[in-house]
């Protein structure tokens, strides 16, 4: 009944909006399919950049595209062994 009333008086719950939102999410996932080759490339690039600032454990490094219901996230777990000394003059 409530749904009927909200449909009568407004468009917040229209099935079109549900369709659009579901499509948006499913396409984020579809388009985020990344090849293992590309993921490896990304890992190597990350190591190169981060190594300028700190010493990291390259073997334990994990990079994954995490997908849950609402979003896709790039999750990187990068164990730091040592920070490099910051010699640059601040200020």
């Amino acid at each position, binding site marked *: 009944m409530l749904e009927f009333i909200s449909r*009568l008086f407004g468009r917040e719950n229209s099935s*079109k*909006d549900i369709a659009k939102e579901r*499509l948006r999410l*499913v*396409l984020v996932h*579809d388009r985020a399919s990344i090849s293992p080759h590309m993921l490896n490339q990304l890992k190597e690039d990350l190591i190169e950049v981060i190594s300028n600032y700190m010493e990291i454990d390259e073997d334990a490094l994990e990079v994954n595209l995490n997908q849950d219901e609402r979003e896709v996230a790039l999750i990187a777990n990068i164990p730091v062994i040592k920070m490099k000394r910051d010699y640059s003059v601040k200020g």
Partner: protein
Amino acid sequence: MGEVIVVTSGKGGVGKTTTTANIGTGLASKGLKVVLVDTDIGLRNLDVVMGLENRIVYDIVDVTNGTCRLKQALIKDKRFESLYLLPAAQTKDKTAVTQEQMKKLSDELKKEFDFAIIDCPAGIEQGFRNAIVGADRAIVVTTPEVSAVRDADRIIGLLEAQEIASPRLIINRIRPHMVKRGDMMDISDILDILAIDLLGVIPDDDSIVVSTNRGEPAIMDHSSHAGEAYRRITRRIQGEEVPLMNLDAPDGFMDKLKRFFGMN
């Protein structure tokens, strides 16, 4: 030199074959020399939609493997002198034609015709890759449903990967009264998501069923709404700027009631 246009969608049953038949017939009705090519090997249907199923002797596989010459396999349309059909084989499977053969065939058709319209099979496997290999342009057909739009998105990605220049979209089976009450995605929703150019919008129309029953493309029926939409699409393919059809459904009782209360 003619042009090869592939009609594709990813998902089955959204109207590729109907679109191919109507666009091809529309272009031929303007005196252009057109060939329709059915590449859905094993599941041919363009012949029945065109009403030419009783005239098939040879098919596309006979041409590509050299059993007959191209001219022998082409079936002349009942209505238009300049319209031909190259039917798919019904008893073979999609591996019966290779991409090289298909490219060669497309090039040959371009020399003979102003337009070759290729009806692509559903899916993204070899049948799809064969159908697009010789195409200059692509038309992507979708309906306003989550599944069809999702598949269209995938197809657009694959077409771009094959460097087929900017595909254009046809949104088929729009139901204006459902759009109006917010229960169907409308044109701008879909264009928003897919981010490609619109070629046309076709209303859901009973006359399509009737014309398919008869084997006569709806574009010839001047009382058909869908036919009018296809006539406009044909003119756009020829480069003309044509406004979209007015799809507004007559107001229902609820619309009038809502307007009365100032809610519309």
